[in-house]
């Protein structure tokens, strides 16, 4: 079992409040990600769960038990660090067995557990080497092995893949997903890499300045960001944001005298729309016809996709995603059209205003 509940957790470093009244529930067996910009408190939050950081107020509950005052070793958690944090003076075998030896488990049992972990992580050949003789990916696997053998209630990962090169990261990601399937244990994972979060998470907590901005499934975060921060943070390239200068029930007045009709009748009332967000893939780009006319100032060609940066005079610079796009080049005059079914509208405080697409989902 490994149900983790954070109940009004706050943390101060002197005057500075790094965690602000955080409430989160992580279900048993769930794979939860903490994402956010540098300094948002995501690592501190993870370290508060492990007990490596004391919290100033609130409670950390594991399976209903308040562990806020327990030392890290008594919380039944295992952590994998970004820097691997292996013990460099002992072999891989001893690294994996380290915690078991400290706990004075019988030797036969230790050997069996180490062998099992080595098998799962394909480390059998490396057991008698020292960490210095391993590659980055192998070291990280040893760190994971050290965590597995202790049968923890939950695994905590602090940016475990960010020291690896791109190809290895993809491979380790696949291995982690497989590991997670076979272990069925709660995992909490801190990363600044959205792709890791989107591809692996059951739920993602987006943190900003010590607060949880939104805690939801990856697709829910992407499709229905609750506020402007989440909208611009999740998704790469970033969502296009336009200022709204005025509105009537179904039409938005944008900068440069442009107007945009939203389908249905959103019926904005007390919430005054202030920003309009459109994801790059919800814009189309054509040489012939379209809503707004502009010029391609930059083309990022990835082969499968192309990201076109289009300057529309008086309005904004848009990022447009074209799938298999080949025909349009830098400097071309083009027309861009937003898909009004997939627009996001936010009020002056950055909060989401529900428009048509949510209503459509509810109908369906």
């Amino acid at each position: 079992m490994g149900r983790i509940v954070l109940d009004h957790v706050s943390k101060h470093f002197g005057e500075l409040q790094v965690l602000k009244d955080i409430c989160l529930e992580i279900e048993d067996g769930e794979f939860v990600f903490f994402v956010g910009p540098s300094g948002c408190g995501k690592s501190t939050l993870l370290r508060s769960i492990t007990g490596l950081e004391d919290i100033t107020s609130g409670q950390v509950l594991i399976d209903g038990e308040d562990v806020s005052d327990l030392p890290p070793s008594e919380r039944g958690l295992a952590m994998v660090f970004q820097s691997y944090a292996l013990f460099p003076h002992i072999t891989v075998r001893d690294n994996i067995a380290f915690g078991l030896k400290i706990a004075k488990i019988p030797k036969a049992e230790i050997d069996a557990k180490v062998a099992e972990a080595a098998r799962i992580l394909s480390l059998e050949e490396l057991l008698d080497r020292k960490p210095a003789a391993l590659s980055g990916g192998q070291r990280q696997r040893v760190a994971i092995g050290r965590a597995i053998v202790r049968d923890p209630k939950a695994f905590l990962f602090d940016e475990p893949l960010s020291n690896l090169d791109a190809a290895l990261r993809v491979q380790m990601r696949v291995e982690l997903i497989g590991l997670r399937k076979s272990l069925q244990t709660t995992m909490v994972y801190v990363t600044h890499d959205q792709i890791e979060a989107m591809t692996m998470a059951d739920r993602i907590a987006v943190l900003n300045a010590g607060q949880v901005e939104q805690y939801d499934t990856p697709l829910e975060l992407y499709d229905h960001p609750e506020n402007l921060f989440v909208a611009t943070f999740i998704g790469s390239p970033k969502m296009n944001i336009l200022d709204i200068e005025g509105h009537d029930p179904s039409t938005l007045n944008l900068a440069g005298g442009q107007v945009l009709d939203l389908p249905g009748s959103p019926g904005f009332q007390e919430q005054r729309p202030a920003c309009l967000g459109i994801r790059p893939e919800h814009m189309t780009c054509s040489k012939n016809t379209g809503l707004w006319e502009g010029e391609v100032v930059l083309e990022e060609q990835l082969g499968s996709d192309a990201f076109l940066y289009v300057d529309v005079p008086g309005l904004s610079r848009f990022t447009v995603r074209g799938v298999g796009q080949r025909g349009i080049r830098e400097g071309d005059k083009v027309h861009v059209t937003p898909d009004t079914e997939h627009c996001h509208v936010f009020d002056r405080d950055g909060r989401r205003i529900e428009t048509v697409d949510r209503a459509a989902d509810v109908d369906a």
Partner: protein
Amino acid sequence: MSRLVRRKALALLGGMVIMFIFTAPIIWMFLASFKPIAQIFSIPPVWVPDFGHLGNYAKLLSENWQFLLNSVIITLSATLLCMVISLPAAFALTQFRFRGRNFFADWVLSTRMMPPIAAAVPLYIVVNSIGMIDTIWALIVIYAGFNIPFAVWVAMSFFRKVPKEVLEAAELEGCTSGQTFLKVALPLSKSGIATVATFVFIFAWNELLLALFLTTRAAKTFPVVISSFVTTSMTFWEMIAAATVIQAIPTVIFTLLMQRHIVSGLTMGAVKN
């Protein structure tokens, strides 16, 4: 080209002169230890002595072997005692956050600012009053004590270098602070420990003044014996030479053994790696 060669030759020559200045007394001492007293001052000098002449050593050791043994026991014990006290202290000062930690660390260092000899008379009175004059225990405790501040400070610098995550990983794996210290911090700090141990060893092995004050006969150390060869009536140069060679041997061996560690230890923390 020839200018370059000449410059290199000059530099080499200069280096050799300087080396000669520093090594000449040691070489003279080494050679003299194999000569009878008459040969040491004979003119013309006897450049190469009969290395089979071991009379000086035989006489020296047969009369003074127990003082050499004192020196060995006192030095090893003091080094060990100093390490046993200062390494955990340094680990605690770097790992635990407690009120007055920095003050405590500075205070430890401040005791180093006093020259040991300034404490000689007070130490004599204290040691005498508890009846430990002329015992090796007094010297062991005092030598260890004088080196603790230095040892703590150097040890702190190498414990700080152990990655924080590795210590945290040990904590998460269930280690107590003591286990973290013994199983992780110490093995990762071997170079630093070797450096500190070498310095403490050399201090204790070569210390003369306190030993002179605090011993009379039973606990006399080897440096005190050497100093006793200078008497009001004459100076026993052949004895001094042989004794100094013996005195120098452990330091040379110890330093050679530890050299690799000392070099990495002394430059440790100098640059970010």
